């Protein structure tokens, strides 16, 4: 089945620093989404980016489908960015999302 690997597993930043999160997946994805979750909270869709580069606010995602990788760049991190970031992909034949295990981000003042 499809596999999604995220790195790093955790990341600690000082407020104002940038973050780069990586996602590698095992098969050609037709859909790739980045999600954010606070502990015990809901999943918030950050970016839907099957290919190319997408921006929203301080977030930039670049997906290179042929190389089966995606990145999420967070610029000028804030304390409120702390939480877990998930990458998830869908294969060609179903709408099922396969999730990575997430990157835990902690931003300190």
């Amino acid at each position, binding site marked *: 089945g499809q596999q999604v690997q995220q790195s790093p597993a955790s990341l600690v930043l000082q407020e104002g620093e940038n973050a780069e999160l990586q996602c590698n997946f095992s098969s050609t994805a037709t*859909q790739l989404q980045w999600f954010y979750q606070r502990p015990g909270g809901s*999943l918030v*869709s950050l970016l*839907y980016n*099957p290919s190319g580069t997408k921006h929203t606010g301080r977030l930039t995602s670049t997906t290179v489908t042929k190389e089966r990788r995606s990145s999420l760049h967070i610029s000028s991190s804030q304390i409120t960015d702390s939480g877990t970031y998930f990458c*998830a992909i*869908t294969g060609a034949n179903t*709408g099922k999302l396969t999730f990575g*295990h*997430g990157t835990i981000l902690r931003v300190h003042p």
Partner: protein
Amino acid sequence: EAAVTQSPRNKVTVTGGNVTLSCRQTNSHNYMYWYRQDTGHGLRLIHYSYGAGNLQIGDVPDGYKATRTTQEDFFLLLELASPSQTSLYFCASSDVAGGNYAEQFFGPGTRLTVL
């Protein structure tokens, strides 16, 4: 943006109990999904549906039934709840755009505890 709601938000039951989790989406999406989230396992798909009356088995279906009564409503049923089903449950919906599965939108989650 799609609106997905879930009820109840929290539920406590005992082993062997009967539990129904409800999900409603109001953006006329055809596809709906039930996931569970557990520490160490991430999010895993339980059941999903392509439309009213349709049901597809996900990756971890054992111990769960689901029913899609309308385009808007998708229910997850635990008929004999076990402590291993203590988890955070998410419902999601999406549609197909241009032949590809589009962005999924998630509900707020239901925290279920089975004692």
